[in-house]
């Protein structure tokens, strides 16, 4: 009943057996311990689980793991290495639960239509995305 799949996850080749009904989100979280990908709804309505699949932003709760066989997956943990953390400077983070999904969505597309945030009111998230599109040079540093 299990299927063997091979994915490249954050640049690392990963082979594992999965049951056919498991979602990519479940595999990332429960099998690979990539906990930065969040589950806000499990049914494709909040965007908290957004990852890049072959460079395209997808909600991983709606992707069956078996269908990701052969794919290249990037999660927030993979992006974090790049060190581009614009939300930090602009204050776009409150509880932070939506944040990884927002960042991944912004990476894979420029529109956040499908990403919910209950805390921020979105203004600062959009500000962050707009700023990360242009180099951060010349911004004041704020801590003493």
């Amino acid at each position, binding site marked *: 009943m299990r299927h063997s799949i091979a994915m490249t996850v954050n640049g690392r080749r990963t082979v594992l057996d999965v049951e056919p009904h498991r979602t990519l989100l479940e595999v990332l979280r429960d099998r690979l311990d990539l906990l*930065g990908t969040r589950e806000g709804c499990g049914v494709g309505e909040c965007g908290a689980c957004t990852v890049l699949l072959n460079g395209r932003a997808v909600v991983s709760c709606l992707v069956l793991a078996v269908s990701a066989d052969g794919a290249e997956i990037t999660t927030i943990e993979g*992006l974090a290495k790049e060190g581009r953390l614009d939300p930090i400077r602009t204050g776009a983070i409150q509880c932070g639960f939506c*944040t*990884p999904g927002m960042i991944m969505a912004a990476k894979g597309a420029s529109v956040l239509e499908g990403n919910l945030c209950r805390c*921020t009111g*979105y203004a600062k998230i959009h500000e962050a995305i707009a700023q990360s599109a242009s180099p951060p040079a010349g911004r004041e540093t704020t801590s*003493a």
Partner: protein
Amino acid sequence: MTLIGQRIPKLDAADKATGRSRYIQDLRLPGLLEARVLRSTVPHGRIVSVDVSRAREAPGVFAVLASQDIPPKRYGYAKDTTALKGDRVRRIGDEIAAVAAVDADAAAEALDLIRFEIEPLPAVFDPERTLDPGAPLVHEDRGSNLVRTHDYAHGRVEEGFARAAHVVEGTFRLPAQAHGCLGPAGAVAEWDARGRLTLHDPTQIPFLIQRDLADTLGIPPSDLRIIQPTIAGGFGARLDLYPHEIISALLARAAGRPVRLAMDREEDFATDPVRPRTVVRMRTAAAADGALLAREADVIVDCGAYVSWGAVTPIVMMHTMGSFYRVPHVKYRARTVYTNTAPTGAFRGFGNPEITFAIESQMDELAARIGIDPVEMRLRNANQPGEVTPQGSRITSCGMKECLEAVRERMPPPGTRPPGGRPLLRAAGENLVASATQTETESPSSPAICPAGRIEGTEPARSPLRRGIGVAAVFHVGGGARIYRSDGCGAMVKIDDFGKATVVVGATDIGQGMETVAAQMAAEELGVPLEAVRIAPADTDVRPWDVGVHASRTTFIAGNAVRAAAKDAKRQIEAARTALGLPPDTPYDKVVRSEHFRDQGSLVIGRAYFDPPNAMVDAENKGNVSAAYVFGAHAAEVEVDVETGQVRVLRVVAAHDVGRAINPMYVEGQIEGGVMQGIGYALLEEVILREGGMSNPNFLDYRMPGPQDMPSIETVIVETNDPSGPFGAKGIGEPPLVPVAAAIANAVANATGVRLRELPMTPERVWRALRAWADVEAPGEICGKE
């Protein structure tokens, strides 16, 4: 001052942005079991039998509990429920049995093996019908569905109405609003061999849970340790003890293994302690010059099947009734009632958005009758610095006037704006940025909010789009709120051998930025860089007492405690320098090390406890419940499609008196987030009940505002430097949500001439109201007068 007023990023922002923060779903413990709960599918019934024997035999199952397996301990404000229900279920979703198994799948499979029989009983769902004679009783033993009555009065209200030039009257209906915290609720319980329980719990009230949960479990509170993981949103949803917390502890005890009870989205919605359905019947009287004379309200609040915080919202409403604007005669009665629906709870604003919707709608109705500008109407009645309201609220700093003037300056009447108005956030491409600091390029020469009435819009005559502007103000507590005998918070500041400071503070960071603000204040007081300050983990074994994160109290109360503790640490450093004969500029690390490496040395740990100078209300419901009050005003511009009833919010200007903005970036964050939740409350969000259960428990059908609903939001921070606030600061957590619905309803009335008194203002409700108005007043035309 160097750190106060700075836009300093949150201390945990990097962890959150890189996915390193750990929420309750992310906890990994050896042997951790997952739990599921069997819930009632009928709204009211007698439990005839529950048979868990087959579930106990199922593979992977470690524990199964039904009510006979747990201590029959009642809990809650009215002690009207148990964690697993014994003889009765009183709402869809009531907990009947629970399973802990190796994983969530095994637990769910075992749940299917539980056999139970429930004999349905008649149920009551409508809070306006539940007190009718013959209505089914939610709690038979109580003999009535009335939970409590709250009465308040000052002046002689009939006299006020008798002298009035204008009286307006109406019934306002407010929906149940769900919190929709993006991370669903959950808890992880683990017991050690000595019988001590550690509960990982994203609660807003760790020190109250300690007492309440220990009581239901029959253990001493000191045997209960609460560790808060990163909290995925609070807004009041985590402000009480809930069945899932008790059940996880009971299952973990029975299983001898740690247990997580985490809800999925649907379960989170179905058990959410929603903002209560509320009905406000109100009338307000004014003199010919606009001075308010009298205000009277009769309120019904739905508690649901069991009493939680929803039942306390009348106290906050009462406070707004008695102290918002200068009203010489006020009378208020509220009744809280049981229905066979989910228990209602605390939600940001806590009764205030409900009553403010009525008060501020009627302010506009009165202004229209009198024929004065709505801002002028409010300025005429505004609270003043130094005023003591008839209810006993001692207003210290007060920026109400400044807030009203600020929104008037920034929101020009629609006629003065370019055709089409400001471009809005659209699906893609341009204008993705709506900055908080954005200002209008066109600056109107006569900055007046147009009075209610027909708007000469910029649209072509045949367009179905009507634009309007509405304002609403807010009054709220901002210096604590004494609803318990304690309104206190403790703090300690430890200076270590390396000159770094650890701040140990009782307050909880639910994403609002408490820890960063505490660090800013400590660093400022100690005269060290922010990097030299860290915050001790959220653990009741470590942190000192705090009542909890509610009532917009944290910056004010915890801030004062932290500031005083830092002062105390600094004093100890100075004393040590003197005692050791060190020069006055000796750095902290050297002073502390010198203490540690001498005979009979000492530690440098500053400590403080701050309990504000406020009081609980007396028998007449009077008293100064908060040490400071906050004020604000919003203006909203809307576009109403009179053919479809669709209301779009184009623009919001939100001005708030925060005393002093310790971190303006997070003040803006609170305002922007509050405005969006307010837009949800005004236009989109409603828990729809079928047989008392939530029929729309998902983000598709329970529509919270998404990026596409975002108007341009301009925030204005008004600083009044409160004398008792830490560095002058007051609270800002709740106020931004409070006036939004009223401002939007006033804008809709301004645009169309039709007033809506029921939320949310869905296209259908707006369309029906427009038709009804058109049929009566102006067949064939929709526009015109209030």
